Every structure is written in C-alpha cells, then in structure tokens.
C-alpha cells in the first residue's frame, strides 16, 4: 500500500482560466478503514486544471457542470466523477492490485516517479522481496533479483561485507561500489580492509536494519545518476526507509522474531590413507627409497607412512620429563614409534565448526496524528557464526522517522538512526595464524583437540600456555601454523562500531508551484578494531602481539533544490529542478601496536605498554575531501507519449584543480497505440546519454617523503624507525595535473507488456566507457620511481540486460508470478597506456590484475612454457617447464549471469523460490594447490603399481611393478609419474605455475526458498492482534558448480576489486530461517 506525499505531486498545481465555474469540494478516503487520503491529484479532465487533497483528505476545485473530475494517486485505482449539480463530491478510492502502470521508481534525488514515465533502466525492489531472504545485510538480499546488479558474498563470516557492482567495473582506483543514497542523502559504504590475510571485514552497508527498509531502487545507467556527478560512476542504489503511515490506526505495532541456523555449504575433502611425514628419499637421497614413507611427528607434510599398515597398538613414547600436559589433562610424550591407526579428520572438524545461530528481534511502531506521522523501530540481531568461538555479530539499531506538517506550505522530515555493532572475527587466508591454513593442513593422523597446555622440557622446566599443533606436537616452541583451536579460542579480533545517521529535510512551497527542499545529512561512525595474539601464537606473533585501530568517518552533505511543475496543456507539461549540493568527508584512523610482550601473562588485559619502547608503534592517518556542485534537471512530457529528461551538473571537488561539467539527456516514446497490435498493451522505447565521473583520491598531486620500512616479499624487513628513522622519497610520484575519470554511457532499451500485462519484458543495451581512468602507472623501477599517478587507462563495459515477468494468475486471492533476469556484460581494459598489468590484489604468484586487452580483474600468474603452437615444452623427463614470465591465466568475470524467481500467493499462503546463476567465470583455487603440495588432497593419496617404466619429475626412473603413491600423467611426452616430488615442487601450490589451479567457477544456487502463512485477520482479531504471520526460508541450500570443495562465491580479498582468488578463505554458509511477525 502506498500512501505517500511525494513532493512531485505537491507541486502539481493547475492554472484556472475557464468560465462558468462552480466550486466543488469534498473529501477523499480510503476504502476499508475510511482514513483520509492526502496528496490525491484532483484534475478536471481535458482542462489542465488541477488541485490535490490536503492532510485531511479535503480538496477544492473549480469545475463546470458536465466536466469530469479525475482523482488519481499512486497505488490507487483512478476514479472519474461527472460534475452535475453537486457542490460536494466525496470519493472513496480503492487500492489497485499493484497495476504495472502504477509501479514507481525513485529518481536520483529520491523523488518518486512512475516507471512508465521514466526513461532509464532503473528498477525498484520492494521490501517484501528483500526480507524473505533473512540476510543481515540489505544488499545481500538483492542478489539475483534484478539484472545488471552483482552482489557477491565473499565469506560466510557473520556480518561479512558483500561485493556490489552495477554492470561492470569502471575504475581501477576509485570506489568500486555504487553510491548509496539513504532517504536522499549519501551515506558511507566503506569496506575497509580486505587483503590476503587478517579477518573478513564488514561492510558499512550492513549497519542498516533491513526491517526499516521500504524499498530499494537501483539506478544502473549513467544518465539516471548524472545529478550526483562525481561519485555516481558505479551507479546509484537508493534506499528508502519506512515512514509512519498517515491515516488508519493511530498506533500500530509490528513485532518480528527471526531465528536462523547457518551451516557450511562446501568443505574440503582430506585424504585419510597416509600419515604425517615424507618419503625416506627426501632424507637419504636414495631413489630406491622414494616410495618408502617415514612418519615424522613434526613434519609439515602428509606424505608419510600408510596409516593402515601400522600395528594399531598404542604409540611407543618416551615417558620422561619431556612432555606436554594439555589443559584437559592429557599428557603427550615424545613419540618413538607411531602405531595408532586413528583418523582424526572428523573430530578435528568438530573442534572448530558448529551450526551457527542467529536470533533477530525487532519492533516497529507507527504513530500518526493530524500534524504528521512517526515511525519508530528497534532491532537486535544476535548471531553466532559457524566457528565455535569468537565469531559473532551483534547489531542493535534504533530508528525514528518523523514527518511533521509545519503549515500548509511547509513540511519537516527528520530521519535518524543509530546502530551499535559488536563483532568477533576469525583470522583467515594466507596467514600462519589463520583458521583454514592450520586446519586443512593438519594430517589425518594428528589430533588437534589438545591445543593448549604446559610443556616440560627434558629437565622438567615448564613452559606455560604452550601451543601444541601438528608441527610442534609437544608445544616446545611456538609452531609454524596455529592449531585451529588456538585460532578460534585464544586469538581475539573484536570489532566495535557505533554509527549515527541523521537527516533532516525541510520543504517549503515558496511561491505558487515552486517548492524549496533542503536536506542535511550527517553520517558518522566510529569503528574500533583490535587484534590480539597471545604468546606462543604461530609465526611473528610468537612473542605476543596486540593491535588496536580506531577509525572514524564523517560524511556530511547539504543539498538544496527548487522544484517546479508546469502544466501548459494536456498535451504538454514540464517540470524542473535546480539544486546545489555541498558534501564533505572526513576520515581518521589512529592505531597502535605492541609486540613481544614483556609480561607474557596478560590475562584479559589488552593494553599498550607491555613491550619495550622499540616494540611499541603508533600510527595516524587522516583524510579530508569536499565537493560542491550545482545541478539542474528538466523533464518534459509531450502528447502523453514522449518523455524527455535533461540534466546538467557543474561540480568542483577539492581533489581537482578545476571544475567539471556532467551532462545527460534521455528520451522515451510510448508508441503502442500506433502499432494497432492488440496483444501489446504497452510499449516504450528509450535512449539516453550520460556522463558521470570519478575524482582522484585525496593528496595524489604531491610526491611524499616518508620513513619507509623495506622488506622482501617473504616478510623479512628493516624498520626505518629503528635505524634513526631515515626518510626516503616515495617510489610513487605525485601528479598535480590529474583530471577526473570520465564515464560516458549510451543506453537504449524498451519496456513492453503483452496480453494486458500478462507478460512484461524490459531490455536494455548499454555501452559505457571510462576514459582518463586513474592508474598508478608502473614506471620502470630503474627510473627511480615505481609508479606515477596518471589519467592513463580506458575501460569499457558493453552489455545487455533483460528483465521479464509472467503473471500466470492474478485474482483477488491468487497471484502467481515468474520473474527472470539475464545480464551479460563484456568488460575490457582497452588501454593502460603501455603498462602491461596493474596489481589489484592477491599474491606474487597468483593475483587479480588489470591487464591491457583483458577483462577487469583478470587472474594473473605463472604459466607453463609453450611453443608457437601452444604445446607444452617438456624437459628431458617429460614434464612441463615453468615459463620465465607471468601472464593472464584466467578471467573471474562471468560470461553471463541470471536470476529466476517464482512467487505464489494464495489467500494467506505465500511460496517463493529464487535461483541465481553465474556462468563462465574462473577461480584460482589456491587452497587445493597447497593441499596437493602437503599430500592432503585426496588426489595425492592414490596408490598404484606401475605397468611400465616411467620417469619422475626429479629424474628418477621407476621400474615396472613398483607400488607408487601418486598418479600417472601424460604431458605430451609419454606417461610420467606424479609423486611427492612433483606435487611438492612444480605440481603443487608453492611452485611457480598457478595456471594449473585455475578452475571453472560457474555456479547456480538455490538462493532462497520460502514459505509463509499470514493468519486471516478475522482469526487474529479475536486475540486482539492486527496481523500474524510465519515464514520459513532456506537460503543458499543447494549449489550446482564444478567446484566441489568451497563455496564458489567466496573471495579471499573480500569486497576489494581483486576477484576470483580462493586461498584458505573462511567458508561460505547456507541458512534456515524462521520468522514470526505479530501486529498490534
């Protein structure tokens, strides 16, 4: 139900000029509860005269006898009344059954417009479609629901941010995600962090309570977004929150209670045949011992002895002083001989994973009075993740949206929200302290459960809080990788966010049809992140490490615009908007760290100062940018069939030396009446041209000097501050002559409806090009700089989008709809001005890059050596050789993607399913390469007897009849043996050839399936309720994908522009959700 007071209609004032007028007045009410309807357009048919109802639903209009008065309002069936002798005409309006010609979208300034009058490819998704999914984030619930929008969950961690992209990627260095406009003002959508290690970070968009959202509009095209100028290059997502309902009950309350269970959807398989250790050959160098396997309790490998051949007795141990006593009381002595056949894969799994649990409670309250209305909400989202400890997300939100009529001419809106979030995160990725790294590499015959205890050395001296893991099974010193138990129980990564968003809006009718609207927005948050590694954590944190960063960001905006509508005749009307805007961003990050604790027993204290001065560090970074702009929009409607829109924005960002102008023009033509083709009841063609921009980052104009630390890619480094804090000129050269990045887009499309709206089709073709894209152009390091900022790149996105719907049934009780969408985007990095590639994210050996002549974020890494015919060049043993140079090895962008949804509602019952698919994208499956290296991957546990003499990678000749652990392959030079020497070298994930781990990452997901029941009003009213409903949803329950061992959506580098990288990334999840709602 839409009972809104859009500004657009407030402006709709007629010009009265005709004779023989009489004054007609009356009240417009809603059928059902009889509440007054304000803002209803009241027009005299064929005259251009118009009025509208006031706050009490009353209207006055001049009309002559015999004329017809038309009452119209969005969401209502238009009503016509013939004027005879009445002077009072009261009208009861009925809600329309969501007629398609009544669908609205929001324009870039947040004003409502009928979809049929709109000349862009914008789409609106309303709250019911968003809420079914039961996601914690608003954006995640959009995935699959409209064409042209990509939403990817990078991880199943609670509250994890999502990657959002409209059409294709436009910029290398600018913001990657769309501009988010909440109730007319821009808000922060930062996802700070997202490298190859650390923890999965949240996105600030998740701070909003999804129960507060009324609808979301996605502006895909540049023309539609052009009034936002710089910043709108990635499209705009407009979010409108609920407001108090005018009319109806004075107070109404809705209480919602939601419970969901999360589980891992894909897991890696680990071999169970061979134990910890390696071939004896690796020690002795004797080829005859290549398939004699040794158990070694501190080895990193699972290339050890065959577990099934062990005696099965207890392990022979040296029971003496040296031992590890776990906190559970178990004692471990040095192993002399491994006899046990026990496999621990299951218990090691259960040590770490659980079923995640979420309980979300929310209350929404509506108040209304003659002067205005108020919406109040409170919600508490409390989630425990799939890891057994320290993986939580708790979000508490409060919102008050008030709308008050100050006078006949002035209205004040005040929307405000507060969010408080506490979250605990788990370390992941390429990270000695990360969960999956230690977990997946653990051999099948090692029991991870006793991870902490006391180590006694041979003289009986105790080390407290010793850390036991498979590479240091007695916990004598800190291990190379964490025991997963240590990772989740002992390390801490808490994160606290507080956020306010305030946006007051005042609109005043200044003169006749001119209205002034002023919006002010403040979005402020404070994000405190800590990371704590106790003494004896793996790697560099073995002596303890504590870090804390406090970030604050404040976005303020002040936007004032005049709007006016002029109805010249019933064949021509136009409206205009003239506005100005001031935006400001301030960010600061203050952080510190202590490493090498002087007191290792810190208990619950998380403090600085527990280290010598040289091991204490502090850092401060600030950023400020501002932007001022003026804009104008003109809309015209000609002959009720041609729609024109022109916008222009003149803007001066602080990051640029000169002002920029962004124009756009769009046109649409509704032409079905000329076709005389009955089945086609609506047809519109539209075309647009628009330009938007991206400003350079702050402070890129100057070259800096800093006390840079220098290190190798292996982590060893020299810290300048310990050596007198010397300064160097930055290797990145500043450039004072930078321009904005310019995105120019042409878009053509059509909207068609057949058989009286039975079938709906919307299609759009777009061609957008980013020119002058900023790039830190790699300079040859021999020039003295490694990079300089330049407007050097050109990126194009061409694509085709279809949204189609079939309304299979529509009666008062029953509605059945099928909706499908399809998007195909062809992205191309047209030019990098000679730079071969630019690193976005990833590793030295496998990364996601921008490469000239390839799609954005192409996967890059080591390749095989090939000849002119693309055949592998083999060494004398018949194995391929690594190429000396790296190149493109894959494309993480889907060839096409789509969504398919079905909805059925019958009386109180609703059923829906939603599928989403990505096809033709590739992923670098980094984890499986590493698991092959360690001999964990099931492929490496194969055993066979050789039927012929074959060579191995290290040049051994294996005679016929040898039992080999490994596989046979033929690279083109005859059969060869892939054994431990192959997998631990060129054939494994630590070798230089990443090409072999590129896999097809296509997927199709049953995104959600949901069933709900709304108890009939007649029943619930007996127990003094207004409404009651229950809903069951399953999310991400099935995946169809060639990737079996991880959720193909996960991305190591989070919501960053680096895509398609998987490396010990925390797993994705699926959920079962139950929601109960009660209205009072």
């Amino acid at each position: 139900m839409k009972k809104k007071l859009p500004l657009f209609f407030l402006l709709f004032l007629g010009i009265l000029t005709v004779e023989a007028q009489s004054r007609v007045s009356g009240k417009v009410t809603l059928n059902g509860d009889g509440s007054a309807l304000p803002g209803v357009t009241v027009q005299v048919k064929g005259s251009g005269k118009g009025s509208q109802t006031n706050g009490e639903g009353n209207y006055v209009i001049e009309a002559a006898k015999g004329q017809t008065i038309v009452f119209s309002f969005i969401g209502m069936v238009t009503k016509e009344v013939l004027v005879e002798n009445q002077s009072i005409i009261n009208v009861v309006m009925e809600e329309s059954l969501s007629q398609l010609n009544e669908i609205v979208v929001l324009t870039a300034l947040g004003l409502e417009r009928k979809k049929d009058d709109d000349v862009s490819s914008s789409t609106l998704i309303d709250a019911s479609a968003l809420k079914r999914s039961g996601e914690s984030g608003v954006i995640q619930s959009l995935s699959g629901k409209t064409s042209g929008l990509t939403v990817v969950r990078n991880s199943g961690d609670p509250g994890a941010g999502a990657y959002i992209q409209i059409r294709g990627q436009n910029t290398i260095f600018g913001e990657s995600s769309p501009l988010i406009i909440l109730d007319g003002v821009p808000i922060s959508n930062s996802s700070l962090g997202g490298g190859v290690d650390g923890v999965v970070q949240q996105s600030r968009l998740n701070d909003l309570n999804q129960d507060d959202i009324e609808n979301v509009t996605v502006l895909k095209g540049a023309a539609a977004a052009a009034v936002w100028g710089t910043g709108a290059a990635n499209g705009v997502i407009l979010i409108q929150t609920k407001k108090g309902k005018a009319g109806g009950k004075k107070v109404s309350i809705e209480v919602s209670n939601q419970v969901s269970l999360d589980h891992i959807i894909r897991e890696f398989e680990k071999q169970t045949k061979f134990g910890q250790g390696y071939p004896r050959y690796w020690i002795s160098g004797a080829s005859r011992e290549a398939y004699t396997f040794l158990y070694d309790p501190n080895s990193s490998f699972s290339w050890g002895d065959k577990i099934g051949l062990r005696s099965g007795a207890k392990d022979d141990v040296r029971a003496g002083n040296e031992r590890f006593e776990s906190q559970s009381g178990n004692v471990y002595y040095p192993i002399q001989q491994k006899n046990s056949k026990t496999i621990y894969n299951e218990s090691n799994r259960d040590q770490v994973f659980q079923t995640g649990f979420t309980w979300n409670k929310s209350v929404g309250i509506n108040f209304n009075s003659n002067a205005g209305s108020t919406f109040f909400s409170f919600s508490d989202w409390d989630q425990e993740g799939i890891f057994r400890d320290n993986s939580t997300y708790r979000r508490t939100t409060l919102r008050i949206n008030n709308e008050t009529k100050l006078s006949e001419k002035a209205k004040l809106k005040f929307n405000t929200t507060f969010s408080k979030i506490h979250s605990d995160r788990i370390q992941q990725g390429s990270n000695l302290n990360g969960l999956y790294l230690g977990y997946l590499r653990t051999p099948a015959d090692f029991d991870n459960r006793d991870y902490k205890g006391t180590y006694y050395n041979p003289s009986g001296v105790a080390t407290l809080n010793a850390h036991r893991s498979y590479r240091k099974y007695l916990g004598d010193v800190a291990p190379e990788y964490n025991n997963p138990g240590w990772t989740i129980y002992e390390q801490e990564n808490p994160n606290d966010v507080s956020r306010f968003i305030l946006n007051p809006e005042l609109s005043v009718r200044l003169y006749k049809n001119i209205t002034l609207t002023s919006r002010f927005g403040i979005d402020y948050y404070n994000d405190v992140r800590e990371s704590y590694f106790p003494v004896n954590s793996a790697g560099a944190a073995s002596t303890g490490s504590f870090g804390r960063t406090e970030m604050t960001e404040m976005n303020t905006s002040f936007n004032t615009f005049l709007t006016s509508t002029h109805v010249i005749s019933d064949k021509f009307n136009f409206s205009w908007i003239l506005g100005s805007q001031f935006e400001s961003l301030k960010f600061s990050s203050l952080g510190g760290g202590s490493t090498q604790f002087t007191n290792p027993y810190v208990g619950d204290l998380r403090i600085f100062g527990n280290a010598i001065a040289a091991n204490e560090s502090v850092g401060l970074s600030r950023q400020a940018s501002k932007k001022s702009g003026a804009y104008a929009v003109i809309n015209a409607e000609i002959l009720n069939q041609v729609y024109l829109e022109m916008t222009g924005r003149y803007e001066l960002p602080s990051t640029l030396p000169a002002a920029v102008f962004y124009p756009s023009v769009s046109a649409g033509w509704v032409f079905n009446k000329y076709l005389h083709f009955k089945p086609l009841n609506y047809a519109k063609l539209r075309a647009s041209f628009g330009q938007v921009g991206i400003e350079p980052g702050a402070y890129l104009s100057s070259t800096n000097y800093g006390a840079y630390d220098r290190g190798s890619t292996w982590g060893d480094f020299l810290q300048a501050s310990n050596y007198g804090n010397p300064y160097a000129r930055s290797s990145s050269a500043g450039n004072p002559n930078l321009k904005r990045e310019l995105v120019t887009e042409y878009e053509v499309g059509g909207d068609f409806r057949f058989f009286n709206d039975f079938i709906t089709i919307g299609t759009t073709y777009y061609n957008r090009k980013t020119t002058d894209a900023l790039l830190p152009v790699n300079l040859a390091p021999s020039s003295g700089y490694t990079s300089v900022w330049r407007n050097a790149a050109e990126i194009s996105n061409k694509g085709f989008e279809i949204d189609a719907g079939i309304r299979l049934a529509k009666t008062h009780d029953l509605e059945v709809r099928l909706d499908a969408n399809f998007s195909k985007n062809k992205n191309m990095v047209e030019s990098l001005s000679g730079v071969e590639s630019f690193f976005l994210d990833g590793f030295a050996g496998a990364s996601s890059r921008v490469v000239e002549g390839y799609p954005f974020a192409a996967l890059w890494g080591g390749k095989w050596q090939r000849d002119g015919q693309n055949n592998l060049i083999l060494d004398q043993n018949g194995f391929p050789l690594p190429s000396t140079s790296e190149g493109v090895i894959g494309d993480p962008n889907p060839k096409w993607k789509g969504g398919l949804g079905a909805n059925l509602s019958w009386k109180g019952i609703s059923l829906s399913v939603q599928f989403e698919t990505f096809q033709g994208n590739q992923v670098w499956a980094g984890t499986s390469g590493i698991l092959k290296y360690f001999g964990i991957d099931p492929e490496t546990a194969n055993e066979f007897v050789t039927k012929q003499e074959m060579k191995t990678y290290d040049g051994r000749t294996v005679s016929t009849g040898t039992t080999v652990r490994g596989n046979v392959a033929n690279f083109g030079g005859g059969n060869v043996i892939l054994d431990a020497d192959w997998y631990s070298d060129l054939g494994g994930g630590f070798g230089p050839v990443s090409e072999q781990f590129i896999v097809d990452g296509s997927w199709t997901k049953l995104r959600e399936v949901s069933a709900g029941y709304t108890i009939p009003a007649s029943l619930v009213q007996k127990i003094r309720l207004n409404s009651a409903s229950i809903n069951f949803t399953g999310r991400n329950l099935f995946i169809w994908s060639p990737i079996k061992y991880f959720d193909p959506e996960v991305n190591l580098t989070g919501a960053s522009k680096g895509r398609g990288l998987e490396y010990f990334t925390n797993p994705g999840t699926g959920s079962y959700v139950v929601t109960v709602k009660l209205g009072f």
Partner: protein
Amino acid sequence: MKIARNIILLFLGISLSQCKSFVDGVNVNPNQFTDAPPELIIGQVEIAVVMLNESQPARFAGIFTDQFTGFDRQFLAYDSYNVISGDFDDTWTNIYSSGIAQARIVQEKADKNLVLKGRAQIMEAILAGEATALYGDVPYVQSCKPLEFPNPKYDAQKDVLAAVQTLLDQAIQNVGTTTASGALFTASNATWAEIAHTLKARYYLIAKDYANARTQALIGISKVNGGLHSLHTDVTGQKNLFYQFGIEQRGGYMTVTRSHLRKLITGERARLLATPGDANRGEVYFDREELNYFDNGYFAVNAPFPIVNWYENQLILAEAQARTGNTTAAVTAFNNVRDRLAVVYGGSFPRTTATGDLLIRHILEEKYVTMIGSLQVYHDIRRTANAIGIPVKLSTSKLIPQRFIYPQVEKNANTSFPGFVDIFVQTPVNK
C-alpha cells in the same frame, strides 16, 4: 513570474558563490612530508644496501651455489632453479627506486657536506655494482632520472662496472680520511676510503681486471675487523634478516640439508685444503640441518652480517696476486685469512703451500666457506666457470644459474627493456 525569477536568481547566487570557497585548501596532505634533508635520506640508502646483501638476493645466491638448500614451499622449486621473472621484482626495486634513486637525492642535496656525498656515492657503487654483477646489462647512465628518462636504456655490463669505478674514485676524493659509520652499520675501524678501495678491488675482480684488483686491494680494508657490517638487535624490524626469514617468517623453507657447504664443513666431502677448524666453524654456521640462529650463531637474531670486510679484501688480494703471478704474496694474503680464522673460531686452519691453479682453487674454496651467504661467492663461481666444482642441482643443466632474471616490473613498464635472458646464459663478463 518576477518573484519566481528572483527566487531562482537568489538561489543560484547563494549556492554558486559558496562553491569555490567550500573546497579551497582541503587537498593538502595532512599525513606526509614532501621533503627531507640528505642527512636523513642516507639511512634509507643504507637500508637498501643491507637488504641487497642480506635478504632474498643472498638467499638465491646461497641456493644457487649450494651453500643452502631450498627445502620447503617455493624454495623447493628454487632449489631446482625454477624461478620466474616476478621472483626478482623486489630485489630490482630495492636496488633502484629504494636505493640508487635515494642515493642520487643525497648527492644532489649534499653539496656542502662532501663526506655525506661520498658516502652516498659508495652506497650507490655497491648497488650498481651488484646489480650489474647479478643481472648483466642494466640501466645506469639513464637510471633514476625520471623526468629526463622515464624509460632508462640498459648499459653494457662492462660500462656499468667502469662507471662504478669512476664513482668510487669520486667518493674517495669526497670522504677524505673519515672513519666509516652509518645508522645501519656496526662501529667500524675502517675508513670510508679503505672501504671504497676494497669495493674497487671487488668490481675489478668481477670485471676480471686482476691487475687493478690487486692494486686496490693493497690499499683496501686493513684492519682484521674492519669493514661494513649490518647492525641488528633483537628488536622487531632490526633483526638479522636471515633470522627473520628462517625463524619468524618462513621456518623450514631454506636449510642446509645435504648442501655442498655443509658437506665441506662436516668433512662429508673433503676440502681441497684440509681444515680441521671447520668443525668449530660449523658450530657457528649451522645447527644440524638448519642455519645457526641461536645466540652467537652466524645468523643469530642480533648477528651483524658483512657487506664488505677484511676477509673479502684479503681473499681478493690473494686471488689477484696469484693471477698476476705473485704467488708468494698470494699465499701470504691467503694465510693471513687462515690465521685469523684460527683466532676467531679456534681449532686448526692450516696454511697453504699450494701454487698455481690449485692455490687459486684453495683461495676460492676458502672464500666460498668464509663468506657464507655472500653474493660475492655467487659472482666468483660464475666468474671462474665453477672452478671449485659446486654441484649443479638440476639434472637437465650443466651450469648453475648464471644470472638473476630481469624482473617482471621492468618488462611491464620500460620501453627500453631488452627482453628476458635465460637464467643459464652467462653475463657478458663471464662469457
């Protein structure tokens, strides 16, 4: 309509008048400096020099010369010489943009402080000299002049080596008789001039100009503990780089399992000149299959690492004397080293009595053992066509890698890039 027009004009007037002043002065970097004095920059040049001698280049050199064994992960591949261009990016970037570029800034700004200028020249000479020794032809004349030469041309190896000599000559003029010092180095009792002469000797040796190498080594580092050694402590960011790599970052990646050096030291493989004292030395170098990272180990957390020192000077002198026919002087220089080793490690380091080719091989072998982890060992093996018979680890090759591959970063961005050269192709001076 007049009122409407006035409203619009007023609106435009107010908003446009504020446009410019609103954004003025915002884009000034609040986080970083835009200039620094040369006295402060020299330390960064020294950091680059230490990185070059002690970090990844030294690990590659040690693996290629079978002093060390790549034992785990990527280093297993390196052990069979499986390297790609990207593996050499950080070394190259360190030499040029972190090193030579900063050294040039010091030289430009240090007009009034000649000693500082001389120090920067010495550091630049090490960076450029090692670059050309490792990579062959490299940019020098046009390097680190970004405005003039965004795409520096590659100079012939012999020209770069000659330019390094000229630069060191200038440095010697500038430094006078000052004692060497620097934030990155332990206290030294060598003068900068002595160090510069030893460096001249080193780069003459690399150019196979033995006569000049001899002349320079004679006036090089004179005191047994003189030279440049990196300064390390147990503070994070100041730790020995081998220690950081082997203990903190990449435990188990690089060991000495079955390495040629370890076999020589343990006696598993006989040395050309029997050295019982190696048993003592081995305890300082190694801890079983690992490098010795313990206190007092050669790679301890606070162990200084030699950049250039007396041992190198003596061993250059010994070889240069031998190759210019001065056997007696060569033997003396060599035995000076042996005598000193006996003092340092205890045990017996017998003197040599060899002559001719065997003497040269005694010298080279001692240099191979004494200068563990040094790039100079790698230069020697290649220069002498592996005269002391280092094992080749790859069954398909007769040679150890003859050069570092040009880095991917240079290929990506330099239009003057001459193309990749295979790792087994000798650099021009060694052909």
